[in-house]
Each structure stands twice: as C-alpha cells, then as structure tokens.
C-alpha cells in the first residue's frame, strides 16, 4: 500500500496591509508533481455550521506553496485554515494553521507620500492601497507643531489638495493609513516639508 503522503508543514500567514497570504513548505516526492488544496473556516462555520470547511477554488490542486486568501478573510473574526497535498491518487492528511488568524493582526506600513507645493497650494500625493484604506494627513507650519491640522482622505485620486499656504514659512506634513474595518492605523510616514514661493515650488 503506497506510503501515506505527509501533510504540508510550516503553514503560516503573511498579512500586510490587509492582503493575506497562506504559505507552507513543499511536500517533496521525487519525480512527482505535488498539488495542494486550501480550505478556510470562519467563526460562523465553527459555531453555527457544524465546523464546516469551505474550499478556495483558486487554490485547489495548485502547485505553488502560497495562496491569496484576502477575498475570503472578509470579516473581523478568527479564521482557521488548512492545506493538504495530492500526488496522483495519493492524498495527505490536512495540515492546519497553528492557532487562528484574525485580520485585525495585519501589519500596516506607513503610506508612500509625496508633499507638493504648487504656488500657494499645499498638496499631497498618496499611493492607492485598496478599498479598505483611508489616510490621515497631518500638516502644520514648521515650528507650530501644536497647531497641527488634519485631513482624512478617503478617495485616493493622485494629487489631493490640502490647504493654501502663506508665502515664507515652511509647511510640513506626514500621513498614516487608517483601516476602518479593523479600527487600526499605521505608523506615520516620514515628515516632508515644502515652502510656497510665488508661482514656483521649492523642495526642502
């Protein structure tokens, strides 16, 4: 009787900026192509649906050892995940993620931001990080950190207008992301300062 196929090991989650990936170590079978299938189980399934598991069809019988589970981790509850291997007619047991995964633990990186002065206008360019993200942009006159102003940017569309500037003083800004569905913010980006001068913008 063929030796039982070992279950995948080292199953773990890599979750950054609300993008969640399940990874595992490859199962090695000389001269054979091993295929993997992934299933998930939310808290609802555990408590109300007889602990049922739901297959992720994009990660059924795949040869890679990574699966993008972002679309299925779409509630802020604890999820279970498992993987098994198949070679021909041989099938391994399920390898299950140690502990649960809740998207509230995703790591949030500071946003890429560019502060621009266009004449007397203070603007900011932010990267689009997906629908879950808003940006809190703080800006102030250099030296007047105690009079910091804040703007929440929900719609990232290239250059966003923050405010108008007086001629002379430097204006500084920094930004952090905010994810409403998990109620968490990233660290701040680097502070950047600019100065308005008539029609020309000046970088500092």
């Amino acid at each position, binding site marked *: 009787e063929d030796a039982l196929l070992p279950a995948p090991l080292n199953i773990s989650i890599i979750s950054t900026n609300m993008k969640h990936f399940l990874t595992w170590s490859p199962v090695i079978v000389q001269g054979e192509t091993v295929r993997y299938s992934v299933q998930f189980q939310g808290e609802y399934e555990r408590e109300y649906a007889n602990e049922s598991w739901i297959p992720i069809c994009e990660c059924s019988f795949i040869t890679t050892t990574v699966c993008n589970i972002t679309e299925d981790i779409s509630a802020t509850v604890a999820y279970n995940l498992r993987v098994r291997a198949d070679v021909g007619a041989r099938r391994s047991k399920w390898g299950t993620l140690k502990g649960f995964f809740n998207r509230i633990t995703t790591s949030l990186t500071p946003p890429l931001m560019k502060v621009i002065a*266009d*004449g*007397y*206008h203070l*603007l900011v360019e932010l990267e689009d990080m997906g629908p879950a993200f808003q940006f809190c942009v703080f800006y102030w006159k250099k030296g007047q950190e105690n009079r910091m102003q804040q703007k929440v*940017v*929900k*719609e990232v*569309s*290239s*250059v*966003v*207008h923050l405010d*108008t*500037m007086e001629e002379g003083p430097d204006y500084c800004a920094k930004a952090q992301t905010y994810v409403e569905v998990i109620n968490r913010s990233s660290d701040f980006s680097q502070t950047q300062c600019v100065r308005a001068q008539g*029609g020309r913008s000046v970088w500092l």
Partner: protein
Amino acid sequence: SGELYCSLPNPRNVHFESVNMKNVLHWSAPEGTGDGVLYKVKYLVYGVGKWIRKPECKNINRTWCDLSSETSDYEEQYYASVKAFLNGMCSDWIETTRFNPLTDTKIDPPMVSVSSTEKSISIILTAPENWKRGPEGESVSLLQVYPGLQYNVSVLNKKTKKRWWFSVSNNTLVVPHLEPGTAYCVSAQIYVTTPLLHSGFSKEYCIATLKDKTA
C-alpha cells in the same frame, strides 16, 4: 376563458433602466416577429399580494414603459412583467429581476458652475434633480435619498497641466491663491458610500482668472 393561444416568442431582456430614480421598463421585441407586435405591462411591489396592470402601457407597440410613478417609493422593491401579442397569439409574461430603486439607479454627474476673480475660482455644484411626478410634482432631492452624498472635484491648471483633487460634502468650493490670467478647468463626480454609488464625471467647465490689473 378567452385566453389567447400563448405560443408567440417571448419579449427579451426585460429590465429596468433607472437614472436619478426615473425608472423605465425596457425590453426587446420577441425574436423574428417583425412589426405589429403589441405589449401589455404589469408590475408588483415585492412582498405585496397582487400584480397591477399599467393602463397607459396596454396594447402599446413601443418597447418601453415609464413606471417611475409606480416605483417612486424607494423603500420598496419591485418586479415588472411584459406580455406580447400578435395576430391572435400571445407570449408568456416575462419578468424583470427584483428592482431596488435605491441601489439600482444610476446617478447623473452634478452640474458645475464656475466663476472667477483675479486670484480665485468659485465652484457651485448641483446634484441632478430626482424624478418628479410632473412639472409641479414634489421632487425628492438626491441628498434626501442619500444623506452621505459627497462630491469629488478635479481642478486642472491648463498652463501647468497640474490637476488637483478636492473631496467636498457641501456644494460649494472656493480655490484661492491662484495665478491671475490663467485658465482652470473643473470637473466633478458624485459619490455615495452607503449604498456604494457614484456618478460619472461631469464635462469640464473652464474659466480664466482675471488678469492682474497691477501688472
């Protein structure tokens, strides 16, 4: 029972087309029937017991029927149905999918009016008017229907070709500190977060700031 022999091919693609809550039922003529086909229309408030005939759309030869008045309560959902008749034969009643005016309507872009001074432009945004029962009919503004309605506004400096974006919830925006004698073009979009809806962008409205009198 005088019921006609229903072997006529069915009307096709029976669906609501809704813009600013003006809800019009549309369909295509049955395959291969040519001219002379007449239609009847009925509708139903979902969850309420009976289909209601639309008299103004009885024995019509056009392939649309305005049901705005009948579907004006956007807290309800609806079905509509069409039957075709030709030479003593008829088709089956063919229904729409369930129609939810609140989420299934398309919103037109806002109207944009722009004025300028030497160093600023003022923008007034007007959301499109909702469907009205008639010229004197009472109109419900989109703002009442969608309390979270906001505007995305883009301002393009024609000289530098730089575009700035503003997100505003009231309907006016003043952009100060601009360059005199410079053309700026403004375009705007409506967006609603619950339910998730957004209009297309309005066409661009361009205006020049006045020339600097002291120069």
